[in-house]
């Protein structure tokens, strides 16, 4: 069992009367890669800045391995930050940027020399030591920022949307690079992003944030496959929400739910269900199966959009009652039934057991998520 490294208790912060963080509790484990995920304004950057010491909480405490850091200034915290736009010192060479932290510790010259070269080698920039930041590409600046931040061997590395300024391909490369560095250095990473794909692919655990509150904390798989609420389900990945009504609660830990007139047996969810209760049946696009119109199973609909994505074929299907269904299927050239044309009638079904049930949320129902 991993030990807690950083512990946030009851953190609260207001800006101009607006609550940015609302009594937030979070335990960050030693050696993990944890991601703070949420739309802009959810409080993730404020939370990161509080860990770094740039912002101070109105209430609550921050402890690192039992040591109270709540009022410690940033320069005395054993953690470092990789900033969103790298924040490299423009007047210093790459070498001096990376050496800055060690110079502030007044380390001997040879030691600084050696450690800076090691850090630059680690990010494959050993030949760039004499350059100025403005002579480097975005990806190279990013690497310098990482080398500079890890040179003091912090216990915790905070990364504030470090990849958002890079193009898609470079971002993929840097994601893999960051994972490698994290494994090699054994440093705990706290990563902030609004990109759910990035969060899922890199993290050991994901913290989904909204309005300064944790919506869900779990492994990428838990967050994706078993979202705790509608917000998480909508924000992380694409989701189909089918309206369901409980038809019967059965003895064998299953319930029968009426979805589009189909009676399906589902595993009993964590929340209490009564007969006649309305609930949401969540199905990811890849859970959906598109069947031929003569099939008996499923619900009738019509293909209105087809998007060839290389490995998958994404479709939008309109059901007869107007519900829009997203389906994503692995491409199979040998399957003739696969190739539906636009406007063609089809039937929509899903893989049994892959559904996820959520209760109706009166208040949150209307609040749409733009992400």
């Amino acid at each position, binding site marked *: 069992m991993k030990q807690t490294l950083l512990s946030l208790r009851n953190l609260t912060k207001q800006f101009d009367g607006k609550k940015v963080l609302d009594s937030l509790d979070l335990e960050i484990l030693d050696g993990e890669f944890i991601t703070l995920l949420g739309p802009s304004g959810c409080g993730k950057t404020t939370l990161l800045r509080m860990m770094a010491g*740039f912002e101070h909480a109105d209430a609550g405490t921050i402890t690192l391995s039992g040591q109270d850091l709540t009022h410690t200034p940033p320069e005395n915290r054993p953690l470092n930050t990789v900033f969103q736009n790298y924040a490299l010192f423009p*007047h210093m060479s790459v070498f001096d940027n990376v050496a*800055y932290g060690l110079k502030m510790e007044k380390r001997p010259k040879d030691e600084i020399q050696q450690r800076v070269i090691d850090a630059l080698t680690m990010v494959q920039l050993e030949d760039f030591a004499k350059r100025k*930041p*403005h*002579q480097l590409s975005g990806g190279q600046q990013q690497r310098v920022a990482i080398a*500079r931040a890890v040179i003091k061997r912090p216990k915790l590395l905070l990364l504030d949307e470090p990849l958002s300024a890079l193009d898609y391909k470079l971002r993929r490369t840097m994601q893999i690079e960051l994972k490698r560095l994290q494994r090699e250095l054994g440093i705990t990473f706290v990563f902030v992003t609004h990109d759910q794909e990035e969060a899922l692919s890199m993290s050991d655990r994901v913290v989904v944030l909204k309005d300064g509150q944790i919506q869900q904390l779990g492994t990428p798989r838990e967050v994706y496959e078993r979202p705790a609420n509608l917000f998480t389900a909508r924000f992380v990945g694409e989701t189909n929400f089918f309206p369901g009504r409980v038809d019967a609660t059965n003895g064998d830990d299953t319930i029968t739910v009426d979805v589009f007139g189909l009676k399906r047996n589902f595993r009993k969810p964590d929340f209490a269900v009564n007969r006649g209760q309305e609930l949401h049946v969540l199905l990811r696009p890849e859970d959906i199966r598109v069947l031929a119109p003569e099939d008996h199973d499923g619900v009738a609909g019509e293909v209105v959009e087809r998007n060839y994505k290389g490995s998958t074929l994404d479709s939008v299907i309109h059901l007869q009652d107007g519900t829009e269904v997203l389906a994503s299927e692995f491409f199979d050239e040998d399957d003739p039934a696969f190739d539906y044309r636009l406007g063609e009638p089809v039937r929509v079904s899903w893989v049994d057991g892959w559904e996820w049930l959520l209760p109706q949320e009166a208040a949150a129902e209307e609040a749409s998520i733009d992400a």
Partner: protein
Amino acid sequence: MRSVMQQPFRTAVLVLVWGWLLFLVLAPNLLVVGASVMTRNPGSFISLPLTLDAYRQLLNPLYLDVFLHSLYMAGMTTLICLLIGYPFAWALSKLPKQRQVLLIFLLIVPFWTNSLVRTYALKLILATNGLLNNALISIGLIDEPMRLLYTEGAVIIGLVYLLLPFMILPLYSVFDDLKEDLLRASHDLGAGRLSTFIHVIVPLTLPGVLAGVMLVLLPAMGLFFVPDILGGSRNLLVGNVIKNQFLDARNWPFGAAASIVLTVTMAFLMFAHRLSKRRIGEDGA
């Protein structure tokens, strides 16, 4: 020729700009350079043969003293402007944007009044029976009026008063550009306030400091009416020397040579400014 017809506006603008530079900047400066190497002539002001006498005359201890004293007063003025302007610009950049606009506006308002008039106003304040002495006497801080006017201090006060905005504006511009994340990064890497100031803030605001020094130091050696009004006969600036040579002594070559020394000093400062900007990569690679 075709392009002239196709882009009449572009051509007109270019002709105007180049014409302006040639006739109103380059030509006058060349005339000054020319005058400085000619011989003084009571009838036509300047005449041949070419000579470096004017420059030799600058080395005369009498004028060297005036130069050094002028440089000293201008240097003090610059230093005081920097000491006031630096924290002022820093604080200004930290204020809410609306407040910043208001304060910069207030900083510029005095320019709407002629600087000669403002210098006379300063004379009224500093005079023996002026506002300052009377105020200090009335609150009992001093018994006798102090001699403020016609001193070196009065000249420096006058110069600081007139030139302070020229120090604050370029400094404000560099502080406004200073990214908060750079200061955060410095703290994050273990630097305290003082270290951050020395290693990050000072180097990054240096171009603004040099720009401010450029805009204050040179005018501070040239604003001849300030010593004329506030300084008496012993606190002369290079500007007074130049003015006197052209208007009173009628020694054009010497006045021109003195003026060129100022120009060269200016060019040197501009070069240093460019270097400092290049260091932080603002001036292209």
